């Protein structure tokens, strides 16, 4: 969807239409969750601190998010997708991969399906969507972002090679600021530059992602569209209204985060063997500390005790903290559950 949250706000409030708006809090801690296209012209983007957004665009209007509305619109859209295929893999509330190789309507053209879905979304929600169509997830994703808003981009098999060769490196899915800078330092500016590298060299520079870059630059991406993504971690975090340094207050916050996480874990029947504490300091320095266990953890008391100990790790800086987060990984979910397990005495 195009500027999803912001578009919904402009749809529902005529006074916001054709104006630069940002969904998100304007307070000192606020972050832009979505920016309208009018705001983007000023260089305002999602995930930007609201203060920076204000500096870039003095006239910007901040709108408090209404997640329940976004969620209900999201489920309407997902419903439309599922009328064409069950192979729908949501990436977020407003974005999903669809595998329409075999589809419920028996349609032969993915482009026609995309056109139909776009117009049905528009009719139902009065919002615009952009679609990308190609031979694999990587290319479809890149294509979907090419002609926003209200775009429809097709990369047919015969054009794949040429398309990737000219594709700027920062348009590759998975290339953000850090990887982008690294790529540029290596002289990789486009897909064509990437093709010059051997797999082993890419792995040396980018670890596991090296294999991914090697493959996608050759148009090869065999990841399936998975209707339900297997969760690899489960977490909760909180940004404080004011930075906190006192341990007692941090413990209280940690406890309530652990409780929130514990409730959700219980609800979904999830447990995990690795507990990670995330600490963001007032200067945005980010530290994580994790602890691994031989048995699965899920109770909020255990998680609290573990993360409290982690918080006291002597190598963590002692300075005001703006955010604490806890996540659980190494989960007991299907993929891991059937792995060989060390059995325990049952007292």
């Amino acid at each position: 969807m195009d500027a999803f949250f912001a578009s919904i706000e402009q749809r529902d409030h005529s006074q916001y239409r054709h104006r630069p708006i940002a969904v998100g809090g304007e307070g000192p801690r606020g972050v832009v969750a979505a920016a309208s296209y009018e705001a983007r012209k000023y260089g305002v983007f999602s995930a930007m601190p609201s203060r920076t957004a204000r500096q870039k665009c003095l006239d910007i209007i901040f709108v408090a998010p209404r997640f329940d509305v976004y969620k209900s619109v999201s489920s309407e859209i997902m419903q439309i997708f599922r009328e064409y295929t069950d192979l729908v893999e949501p990436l977020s509330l407003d974005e999903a991969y669809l595998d329409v190789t075999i589809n419920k309507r028996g349609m032969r053209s993915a482009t026609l399906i995309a056109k139909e879905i776009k117009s049905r979304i528009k009719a139902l929600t009065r919002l615009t969507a952009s679609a990308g169509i190609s031979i694999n997830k990587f290319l479809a994703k890149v294509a979907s972002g090419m002609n926003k808003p209200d775009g429809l981009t097709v990369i047919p098999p015969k054009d794949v090679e040429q398309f990737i060769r000219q594709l700027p490196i920062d348009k590759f899915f998975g290339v953000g600021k850090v990887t982008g800078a690294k790529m540029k330092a290596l002289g990789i500016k486009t897909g064509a530059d990437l093709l010059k590298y051997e797999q082993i060299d890419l792995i040396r520079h980018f670890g596991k992602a090296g294999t991914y870059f090697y493959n996608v630059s050759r148009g090869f991406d065999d990841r399936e569209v998975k209707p339900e993504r297997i969760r690899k971690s489960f977490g909760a975090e909180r940004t404080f209204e004011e930075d906190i340094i006192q341990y007692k207050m941090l413990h209280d916050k940690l406890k309530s985060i652990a409780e929130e996480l514990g409730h959700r874990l219980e609800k979904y029947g999830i447990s995990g063997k690795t507990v990670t504490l995330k600490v963001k300091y007032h200067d945005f320095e980010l530290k994580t500390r994790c602890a691994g266990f031989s048995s699965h953890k899920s109770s909020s008391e255990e998680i609290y005790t573990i993360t409290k100990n982690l918080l006291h790790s002597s190598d963590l800086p002692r300075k005001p903290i703006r955010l604490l987060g806890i996540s659980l990984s190494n989960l007991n979910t299907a993929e891991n559950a059937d792995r060989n397990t060390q059995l325990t005495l049952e007292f």
Partner: protein
Amino acid sequence: MQFSVDKNNLLSHIQKVSKVSPTRSTMPILNSILFDIKENQLTLRSSDIEITMNATLNVNGKEDGAVALPTRIIYDIINEAEEGELILSSDTEGACTLKSGKGVFEIMGRPGDEFPSLPKISNFNDVEIENSTLRRMIQKTIIAVSKDELKPALMGVLFQIKRHEIRTVATDGHRLVCLIRQDFQNEAYEGEVIIPVKFLNLLLGYLDSEGTTLLSISENHVKVELDSTVIYSRIIDEHFPDYESVIPKDNDKIISMDLNSLLSTIRRVVIFSNKTTHQISLSLSKNITKISTVNQESRTSADEEVDINYSGDDMVVGYNAEYLKEILRNVDTNNVILKLKSSISACLILPEEQKENEDFTMLLMPIRLNE
């Protein structure tokens, strides 16, 4: 406070007590050793709150008093000091001067009264145990003690003491060791306590000589006096799980084999196993077992056969090789007996024959193998 003492005499005592000082602590004072002079007797004390050690030695006292000095620095300087006499003096603020040979060293300590006092304990029950027995009872069980701070009850060894029997038990949930001795007499005490592993490790350092040790047990503490040294430890105030209920009685697949050939085979095979799970499998068949491992990540594998005495059905069972090795090293007969029931239940590991008046049982839970 002021006294003089021979360097080596002081050093040997500091070496002892420094073992209790925690490496990291939320209470900075615990990273120091208390020096307390009364007339010609110096008492050194260290503590990590759970465990406190007192060591006394004779010195030339000039002025009574006490000071707590940082463990690391006092240990290092006395270790490096020239042979001969040392003179230590301090004021009431904790400022301390050490003179050794031509050297003068200033150390900033803390006033002695800031150091935690000895636990106040009354109503000790004294249990006398032969050093050799106590050493064996600790050494055999300590390998199974848990390191999981979330299971405090398992972070020590359970001592069950009766009039004519003493038992030690430890488990981390994956393995369990239980040693029972019947050649034991005691009229003073019947009961059970969980003793922290750190205390037992300290105690092991004193059990090499012949003779007996007096284990003094109170409601919350255990204490041993060893010549000039006294060690106090808090008892783990938790409920030890009902270990007897998990010791299988009907394991009918009985295997006996040469301990050393089994151990050396495992040592070879484990080189090829997954470095986190250390998983190996034992494929049992008539009179032979194949010990194998496959590591998918590094694409390595190993297979080796070992002769055994076994006449039961074929069976494949997985173990963490590190656990199995530790348990087998604990066996002190030439042959070892394994008693199994199924590939997902506890295996009993026993010596070929029990020592007189002793019952020594070990348990290991397998790894569930999925094809």
